[in-house]
């Protein structure tokens, strides 16, 4: 069996010049009748997880959230751990698309589109958990300022209400940004379409984009403005999520370090998810020419930088606990490292602080499979970080008489595992039907686009 049977994208892209090759390299993924076998395997696996996800959510809706293991004193448990985990994943996408754009980091063009897609799918997964955790998921409109029969309004001074606005704004702006970036690429798909269905479908979403320079002018300005808006937004979202904890009086939560610590952690975990997706994607969809080893290495460096910030935050929390002299605070941190959840704490430290240090060695950070492995490890570590923050602090606070120990139920595990099914299903459909790489942006920063400079 030839390689091309398994993967139709191994062949070099067609085209007389660099622009045409970029177009072909990206478009053929969405135009092929037969995606690589790996896609089918991954999609089948994702479908199984998705069924598990919807079944477990249905079970929870029908029976109530007592089906989960959250119980006083750990009332937040898995749902909020998963929420913070998924919302954090999203941050890398916005960072790549907006912050790196403002900093003129042109290498981002190779990865920004699917990092943005990852953001949106992660936010979709994240939003489900608090929606279910409210207990009566048919009443989420209580959280929005809608005039209602009870004559009651939301309480705008609560961080949980800020969260509703922050996350929904973040989801909306991410989708707008993502969609606007895709308009020129949809036009490419429309112009290359060989069937009426594709031409009409991509034609509608391309909105009649024809690449006029007068339109590009407004478009570029709009892109810049959206990037400038998304940059503070991405910093605000995880800051607001951290307020859910930091404004509480609970030892281990009540800390001013939380907003920057959460944002750094989110970017850390998010980049880990980007490389986790990028390595297989470039492998199976023949994108090695566009997403190069250099891109992986740069992302690994971001992972290292943010990972060190996170490690510093872990240390600083201990220092503050000691320096503050608060005995409850001190107990909480001793309890974190050596109490009943020590196993979770040291998993977190190993995954987030120790193992990523392998990337100091160039050979490791330039190896795709090593990148993937560390990416997976960091994903695990960042999930455990949220677990440690929530479960250790809640399970043992001021009064020993109200201490407890959180144990997840099988439904908890099914909901967590199943949420990956939703994420990967959406992501694999995106790979199959939407422009996976921002073709217009890659072309604009390709060497061929700038050769005129030689003639000046």
């Amino acid at each position, binding site marked *: 069996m030839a390689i091309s049977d398994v993967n139709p994208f191994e062949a070099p892209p067609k085209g007389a010049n660099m622009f045409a090759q970029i*177009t072909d390299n990206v478009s053929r993924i969405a135009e092929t009748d037969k995606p690589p076998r790996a896609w089918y395997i991954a999609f089948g696996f994702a479908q199984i997880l998705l069924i598990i996800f919807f079944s477990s959510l249905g079970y929870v809706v029908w029976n109530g959230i007592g089906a989960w293991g959250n119980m006083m004193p750990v009332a937040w448990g898995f749902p909020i751990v998963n929420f913070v985990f998924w919302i954090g994943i999203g941050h890398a996408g916005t960072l790549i698309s907006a912050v790196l754009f403002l900093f003129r980091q042109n290498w981002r063009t190779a990865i920004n589109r699917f990092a943005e897609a990852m953001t949106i799918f992660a936010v979709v997964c994240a939003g489900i958990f608090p929606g279910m955790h409210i207990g009566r998921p048919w009443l989420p409109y209580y959280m929005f300022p809608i005039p209602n029969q009870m004559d009651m309004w939301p309480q705008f001074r609560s961080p949980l209400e800020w969260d509703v606005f922050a996350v929904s704004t973040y989801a909306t702006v991410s989708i707008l940004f993502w969609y606007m970036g895709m308009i020129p690429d949809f036009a490419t798909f*429309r*112009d290359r379409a060989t069937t009426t269905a594709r031409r009409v479908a991509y034609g509608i979403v391309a909105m009649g984009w024809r690449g006029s320079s007068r339109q590009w002018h407004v478009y570029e300005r709009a892109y810049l*403005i959206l990037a400038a*808006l998304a940059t503070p937004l991405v910093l605000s979202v995880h800051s607001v999520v951290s307020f859910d904890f930091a404004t509480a009086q609970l030892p281990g939560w009540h800390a001013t370090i939380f907003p920057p610590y959460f944002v750094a952690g989110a970017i850390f975990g998010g980049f880990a998810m980007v490389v986790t997706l990028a390595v297989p994607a470039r492998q199976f969809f023949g994108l090695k020419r566009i997403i190069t080893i250099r891109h992986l290495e740069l992302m690994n460096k971001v992972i290292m930088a943010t990972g060190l910030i996170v490690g510093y935050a872990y240390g600083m929390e201990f220092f503050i606990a000691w320096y503050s002299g608060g005995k409850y605070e001190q107990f909480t941190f001793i309890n974190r490292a050596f109490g009943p959840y020590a196993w979770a704490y040291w998993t977190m430290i190993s995954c987030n602080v120790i193992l990523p240090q392998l990337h100091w060695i160039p050979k490791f950070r330039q190896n795709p499979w090593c990148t993937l492995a560390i990416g997976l490890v960091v994903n695990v570590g960042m999930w455990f970080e949220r677990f440690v923050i929530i479960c250790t602090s809640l399970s043992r606070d001021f009064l020993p008489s109200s201490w407890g120990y959180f144990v997840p139920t099988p439904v908890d595990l099914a909901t967590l595992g199943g949420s990956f099914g939703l994420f990967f299903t959406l992501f694999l459909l995106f790979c199959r039907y939407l422009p996976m790489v921002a073709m217009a942006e890659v072309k604009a920063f390709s060497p061929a686009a700038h050769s005129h400079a030689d003639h000046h």
Partner: protein
Amino acid sequence: MSDEHKHSPAQPSEAPLHGLLAEYDRPEQVLAAAKKIRDAGFTKWDTFTPFPVHGIDDAMGIKMTILPWFTLCAGLTGLGSAILLQWWTNAFDYPWLISGKPMWSIPANVPIMFELTVLLSAITTLVGMLMLNNLPLPSHPLDHVRRFAKVSDDKFFLLIEASDPKFDDADTRALLNGTHPAAIEAVFEDRITVDKLPTGLVYGLIIVAVMAVVPFALAAKARYTKSSGTRIHIIQDMDSQPKYKAQRENPFFADNRATRPAIDGTVAVGDAREDDHFYKGKQGDAWARTFPSEITLSEATMDRGRQRFGIYCTPCHGQAGLGDGMVAKRADSLAQGSWIPPTNITQDYLRQMPVGQLFSEISNGVRNMPAYGPQIKTEDRWAIIMYVRALQRSKSGNVNDLPPDARASLK
């Protein structure tokens, strides 16, 4: 690849000329051509490129877009509406005290202000971009030019419209030829795309529009008419449960009552109150004239009595028991005429009244004074009586009742 769907160009004899299209292979070629066309003074022309070509704005003389002002206005609107929303809902329409903080405190409202500013700005930026670019634009004369399909791939185009005052078929073609294009093609007005929407689509849209009104009409009908039917209760929560509630009918029992009466002779735990002196204030058939043996005459009991009296009795009877409590004063000031004033408990007949009868009146109420038995514990009621006796004594005392050293201080 696009041959199947691109229509063939309109017949030159039928359709008027839209403009002249020049094709280029490289971005720097279209950039150079754009400068020439700009300098030649054309106004109705454009270039079309697969990506934003660096420097084309200057080369074409494109003015800065007003889009940022749209965004600014939207951002300020978002900020203003967030302030108004939070002030209206939490500080004005339904003032809500949280942790003793001020009703209207800006810092806690900043996150929502920020989010709504960003939300409105972002939506306006995208909608404004589409508006300023005349998008969506379903049809254009260039759609019928086969080579133009490459504009989103790797080719660069320049179009001069025939409606430009400087346009002249031969001269303009010569000018374009001087920019070294790969090809020049005449573009004709769009006569193929039907301007009108398909009839089926129009009727479909009308039907959808009419259907969309139905829910609102039903809501309006429900709002302004009366119905004897039960309310629609989609999510039951636990509002209706298969159980019998107190005071309801239950056909299972002979007496049809869901509430089961106590069986005759039943005594609940702690209800076997056999000591009539303590619980009823009676000795035999007469009111008790002494305190029961459960109550010790002590400073502690007296303090307890004073404290309970302060809580339960002073609102009406006043601190000294003169019947001048705050409730009585308020009732007097209202002067409604229906008020029965509280009793001055230092009156003679009350001083003569047996403690057992006082106990009974506190426990069961008298005139418009309600029964305090259910609220005040039995021993506390006796303690109050002890304090009442002290108050009564204080009204009839003279200086000789005081201890000698305290007597001296009054002089």
